[in-house]
């Protein structure tokens, strides 16, 4: 089991922000507006296609319709509330899943009895696409909020548990030896070596878990019962055949997800910097 395996945790994909490695070929690259070129072109083409009604207007809604729906349309303007509802759901589901993940990761990382007995089963269960659990989960826990919370918690649980486990297991022997030679007392060893050394790995797990849990939140709203939140909004848009609502919902979930990812990686670097773990 590797923590990096968990990059694919849920309905979507967690993609770490690319490292800025040295570039080999430089060209126009320094020209800043270049990055905006493609989005602008896409937006323009979309707008033109909608303007000249190249598709059915119900399907090919114009970008400004989608944008305005967030402010003027009664169904569309619920996107703000929906986002808040989804975030609240994310917060509680993630809190549950991440705590459980940390506990299990700590246990399997530190105690080999737990490791040997728990880890293989967890590794096997992880192979079942979480989405496939939904029919069974709804069967067990009903079609409502409980199941959604459990689903979100599961999406957070696996990456957090696996990364924490790995983080503990991969503490370099060199440091463990140094601690032994210094004959640190168990508590000092835990506080001064084990936890700080595992911190980056645990942070990675929390980061992947958070992004995964966001996608899990949307999936749960989409596929479990009638729900509010952005997932519910998209379902509503589909049911009412309102492409603008669907697009608005998808845009909102992408932007919020992006924000969550960025906030998580900022928090991580802040945390690690504060522990002298990066320069």
């Amino acid at each position, binding site marked *: 089991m590797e923590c990096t395996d968990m990059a694919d945790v849920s309905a979507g994909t967690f993609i770490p922000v690319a490292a800025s490695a040295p570039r080999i070929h430089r060209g126009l690259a320094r020209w800043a507006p270049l990055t905006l070129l493609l989005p602008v072109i896409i937006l323009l083409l979309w707008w033109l296609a909608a303007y000249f009604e190249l598709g*059915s207007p*119900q399907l090919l809604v114009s970008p400004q319709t989608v944008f305005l729906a967030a402010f003027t349309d009664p169904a569309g303007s619920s996107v703000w509330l929906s986002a808040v509802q989804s975030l609240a759901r994310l917060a509680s589901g993630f809190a549950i899943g991440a705590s459980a993940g940390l506990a299990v990761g700590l246990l399997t990382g530190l105690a080999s009895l737990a490791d040997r007995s728990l880890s293989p089963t967890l590794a096997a269960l992880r192979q079942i696409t979480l989405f496939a659990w939904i029919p069974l989960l709804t069967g067990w826990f*009903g079609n409502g909020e409980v199941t959604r919370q459990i689903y979100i918690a599961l999406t957070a649980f696996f990456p957090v548990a696996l990364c924490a486990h790995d983080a503990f297991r991969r503490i370099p022997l060199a440091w463990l030896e140094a601690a032994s030679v210094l004959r640190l007392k168990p508590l000092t060893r835990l506080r001064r070596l084990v936890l700080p050394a595992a911190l980056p790995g645990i942070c990675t797990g929390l980061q992947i878990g958070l992004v995964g849990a966001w996608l899990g939140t949307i999936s749960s709203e989409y596929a479990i019962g009638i729900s509010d939140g952005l997932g519910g909004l998209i379902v509503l848009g589909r049911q009412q*055949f309102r492409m603008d609502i669907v697009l608005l919902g998808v845009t909102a979930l992408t932007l919020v997800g992006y924000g969550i990812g960025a906030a998580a990686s900022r928090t991580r670097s802040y945390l690690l910097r504060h522990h002298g773990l990066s320069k």
Partner: protein
Amino acid sequence: QEWPEVIRIGAVPSASGKAFATGLTGVAHVKEFVEAEFKDTPVKVEWVYLTGAGPAINEAFANKQVEFGQYGILPSLLGHSRGLPTKAVLAYGGVSTFAVVPKDSPVQSLKDLKGKRIGTMLTTMMHWALLEALAQEGIAPDEVTIVGLQGLDLLPAVTSGQVDAVFSASELLTLEEQGLAKVVFSSRNGNPLTAGQGNYVADKDFIEQYPEATQRVVNGLLKAGYWLAQPENREENFEIWAKSGVSPSILAAELDGVDLKSLINPRLDEFYRGRVAAAVDFAQQEKLLRGDVNPEDFYDDRFYQKAIVELGYENFWPDRTADGRVK
């Protein structure tokens, strides 16, 4: 007299995804007919809307999360056949079905669909109703191509021209409202066999432990049915149903000329029994059942019989034959 603490009634929410229902359940819920029956008791009544329709309500019964459930005959029979301790205590009436085609399609009626591709949700009440509707027009199942689609995919499938028509419940009306499609068939003004038929199902253990409570629930539901069938309540009905997301004017237009009393008929009569028997046939044909089911074992009409007499409704709703004609 012993009372349960709470009575939970599971129901299928409206197609628009709001936690409200149309039909009898919508009226009973909003006007609190069932609650009224328990005024003098500590019993609480809860309405539980479960998306995922039939399957979800079956799961809720298995989990002891509901005491009553309102859903299609077909899914409730499937649950019963698998060993759920459920009994049908009251019919629910018809769930209207529709067939829609793209706006510019030459198709005018079901007849024109011979040899065409029709999308519907396989192995559900809708699939079953479609076969009935086609049979009415003398079209055999192998004279059309039935394309399996999941609920939310019906709308885009027909607008993108992937199928020539789709067959399902009132959620299809959205398309007509948006001017993307036209309705070429509606069970509302046709044969009740082509409508989806539903029923209220109760947990057997509950019935046995609380017969009096069960009776009161059935009474409440019947009173709701009685209320909604009164012509003077027609407008208010539409307003109640509109809570589920469709505008009252559209409902009025859709149901123009439709007699609500015969559309929503809760009797456990011959017609109902016939529908149950037909559902068993359909399920066996589609290999949805494991082993045999005895339809007689599925319903328990004691409460209905008692209520209809007590409340003096014996002759209120028409009594129907197995093929849907009024006796």
